[in-house]
């Protein structure tokens, strides 16, 4: 019946990894890298930690918009920002995994392009917080295992502050930015409906 009322056909369905998936990685990586770049112009630091880490705001969004591919893009973006300042990504394996987690966890748990109800909002914030807590824990572990920073300092100072600079910032700003962009993402057709693309 619907066939009769709408005789128009869809294109062929794409099964393998296509240009769209690769570009999702690249665009996420570039925007993520760009925000880290812009952070330099926002010189409010508390000790060694950036007061607000804007890249954290984007991480859940790319996981949700572009699924697995956006999460992979966060890793590539972070590697790029490391290259510029001569930081060897090989020494930060858990920190790279952390970037992935910050996108992956919200991405796999929340697959909508819009926040339509209060329940959606709460769900969104919870998944963002989960992703951030897991991600920051991995960053902390990297500091302990590879940079050999004492564990008590990492957990009491660095990780504690990251809950403000990353988790809290993302919990407040990510939903705002997500709502802000939802119209565009919806109409432009860039949103990946499935996590695997």
């Amino acid at each position: 019946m619907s066939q009769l009322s709408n005789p128009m056909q869809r294109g062929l369905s794409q099964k393998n990894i296509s240009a769209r998936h690769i570009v999702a990685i690249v665009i996420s990586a570039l925007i993520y890298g760009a925000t880290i770049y812009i952070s330099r112009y926002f010189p409010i630091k508390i000790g060694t930690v950036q007061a607000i880490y804007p890249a954290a705001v984007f991480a859940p969004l790319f996981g949700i918009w572009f699924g697995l591919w956006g999460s992979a893009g966060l890793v590539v973006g972070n590697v790029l920002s490391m290259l510029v300042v001569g930081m060897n990504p090989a020494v930060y394996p858990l920190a790279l995994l952390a970037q992935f987690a910050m996108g992956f966890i919200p991405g796999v748990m929340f697959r909508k392009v819009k926040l339509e109800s209060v329940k959606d909002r709460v769900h969104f914030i919870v998944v963002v917080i989960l992703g951030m807590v897991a991600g920051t824990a991995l960053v902390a572990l990297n500091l302990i295992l590879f940079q050999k920073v004492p564990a008590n300092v990492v957990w009491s100072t660095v990780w504690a502050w990251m809950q403000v600079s990353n988790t809290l910032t993302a919990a407040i700003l990510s939903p705002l930015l997500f709502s802000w962009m939802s119209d565009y993402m919806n109409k432009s057709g860039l949103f990946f409906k499935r996590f695997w693309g």
Partner: protein
Amino acid sequence: MQLYYPSNSIIHYMHGFSKILIFGILLTLIPLFMEQPISLLLLLFLCAALFSYIRPPKTHLLLLIPVGLLAVMMSTTYFFADMGGQVYLHMDFGYWMFQISSGNILFAVTFILRMMIWSLLFFILLFTTSPEDLVIGLKRFGLPEFLTLAVSLALRYWSLMIFDVKTVMDAQYCRGVDFRSGGLLTRTKRFASLLIPVLFVFLKRFRTTSFALTLKGVGRKNKRTYYYNPRLSAIDSWAISSAALLTAAWLTLQWLYKL
């Protein structure tokens, strides 16, 4: 990202794979298993010698400044814990404490030395390897095609991205937005005024890039040809063996004598 510069050092002629393996992994492992500052200092000199051998241009030398600053800043975290030794200064801030002691200083110096060694090694890799060779090197490590393509695209677009971000900042400045004044809230708001155009500018390019790749045959199922596919040479085999031997020797020495 213009870190690579062509020159005629032996390292320049090596395969990307060898350089990633040697400078990015094997030699990078050594400082992780080095506890004594004197050993680290010696290694730092060796790395500096290698670094000067590749004769980086003056502008590239400047890149060591932010790395140095970052290392110093990160090393300050040691002063928030008691790492033992003679205490010169101690301050309590309730939950946190700040202490300057011989132990803290020793750990901080060790950390800075380790960071500088890693950076020098990594710069040797980046300065002597073109993005194309870097990607070919990564591919030899078994990275999937789509990921190496994504990395090479990100490297290709990086400088365009920096240019675009600067233009967005200029455009906002022309509307009276000043990023270096005002309180935390004002700055945060102004900062957000940057992120949104950046996001749109890049998302709008999603389609062009995706179409461009598809129209160049990305996504086809056939076997791919590699037009530029350099082979590992005798220099590579020699260099990899030496680096592996050096790493193994050091790990043994470290295990035996705790150097």
